């Protein structure tokens, strides 16, 4: 019997190592797996590369992880979201390596990783400082920049409901980066509000099929 349900955060995060890349879903604080992400702080794991659209809000979730000094690097599009106190303090001390990526490029880099695509050319940012050091090419008369796939060792995502196969449904705009991160994580862990009987999620409404999900934890 396939059963991706796990009990507790230790089981949910088993195998996370120093230096891993961790994809953290959410946009602002919506759709972010706060409790699952904060559970990393209780583990002896360091030098993480965190990938998240923002650098967290207030003192919870990704912000708490960064404040605890567990990340060496943050890859994001817009670090200063609602209540950016943690990133402001870390940036002032230059205590965190920061890679700024256009938001659509960030998302597409993870899609490429999940889809087995070896990178892609995009016009976004091609004629800007963010393309420095990257290969550019003129395609159909427009300058494009080559962007690389961005896989995660872990993806820590949040969904509304799951079943034991790891099929996921989301609520409203809390979907955001979670489905693409689920595709790009070698180990994808979904924090959900509820697990329901197999067969009771509407197949037409499942936004992330269970093939992309390894573990499900209820919070």
């Amino acid at each position: 019997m396939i059963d991706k349900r796990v009990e507790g955060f230790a089981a949910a995060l088993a195998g996370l190592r120093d230096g891993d890349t961790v994809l953290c879903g959410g946009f602002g604080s919506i759709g972010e797996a706060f409790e699952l992400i904060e559970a990393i702080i209780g583990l002896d794991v360091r030098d993480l590369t965190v990938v998240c659209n923002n650098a967290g809000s207030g003192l919870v979730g990704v912000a708490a992880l960064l404040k605890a000094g567990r990340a060496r690097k943050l890859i994001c599009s817009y670090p200063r979201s609602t209540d950016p106190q943690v990133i402001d303090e870390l940036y002032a001390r230059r205590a965190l390596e920061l890679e700024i990526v256009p938001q659509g490029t960030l998302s597409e880099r993870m899609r490429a990783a999940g889809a087995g695509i070896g990178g892609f050319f995009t016009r976004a940012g091609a004629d800007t400082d963010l393309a420095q050091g990257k290969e550019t090419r003129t395609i159909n008369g427009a300058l494009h920049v080559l962007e690389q796939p961005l896989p995660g060792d872990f993806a820590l995502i949040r969904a509304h409901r799951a079943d034991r196969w790891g099929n996921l449904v989301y609520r409203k705009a809390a979907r955001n980066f979670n489905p693409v991160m689920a595709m790009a994580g070698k180990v994808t862990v979904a924090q959900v509000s509820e697990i329901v009987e197999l067969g009771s999620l509407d197949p037409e409404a499942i936004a992330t099929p269970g093939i992309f999900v390894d573990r499900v934890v209820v919070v």
Partner: protein
Amino acid sequence: MTPLSRRQMAWRAAQDLAEGQYVNLGIGLPTMVCDFVPPGREVVFHAENGILGMGPAPEPGKGDKDLINAGKGLTTLLPGGTFFHHNDAFLMIRGGHIDVSIMGAYEVSERGDLANWATGSDKLAPGVGGAMDLAAGAREVWALMEHNAKDGAPRIRKSCVLPLTAGGCVKRVYTNLAVLDITRDGVVVREMIDGLDLAGLQRLTEPKLVLANDWKKLEVPAL
């Protein structure tokens, strides 16, 4: 002369949105454009975080925490609205499916170069969000911004001083003083507020301005 308020600036830009257009509103001032589309005109607002058919802000206390806009403020979904994930949201942007992107700007050059992501400050981390994708992919980019910086420096420039978001993307600029088109023939003044003439506007603008033959007074309601 009385410069437009921020609400009046948003109102003015909203009047130019056409029936049936798909429109992305940037964070800050452009978000207010949503409130001023003329009644009866159907415009579909897109949010980069996975919404089409975004409505106005909810009444106080009535919002849903999982329903936010690009600026992380609570919003609503209109009948016919949909949710989708980030890849689809940006595929719509880069793939030319968005008719108009209205963004705030620090600077716009006479060639339509846009600078709206980095202030050059070393105190706060810069953030680009979806601005580069929108600038590269939307069919039209309109900038909505104060005509001058707080210290009076022009923000419509011969060349941008700040780092670019994209070159040559801005087609139209709405300011608190004027409506301007970026064209091959230069920066064309379409509308100016009452009490301002071309010489007065030119003193507040770096590149040479061209007055449209059919220019009008920039008139807005009290809001």
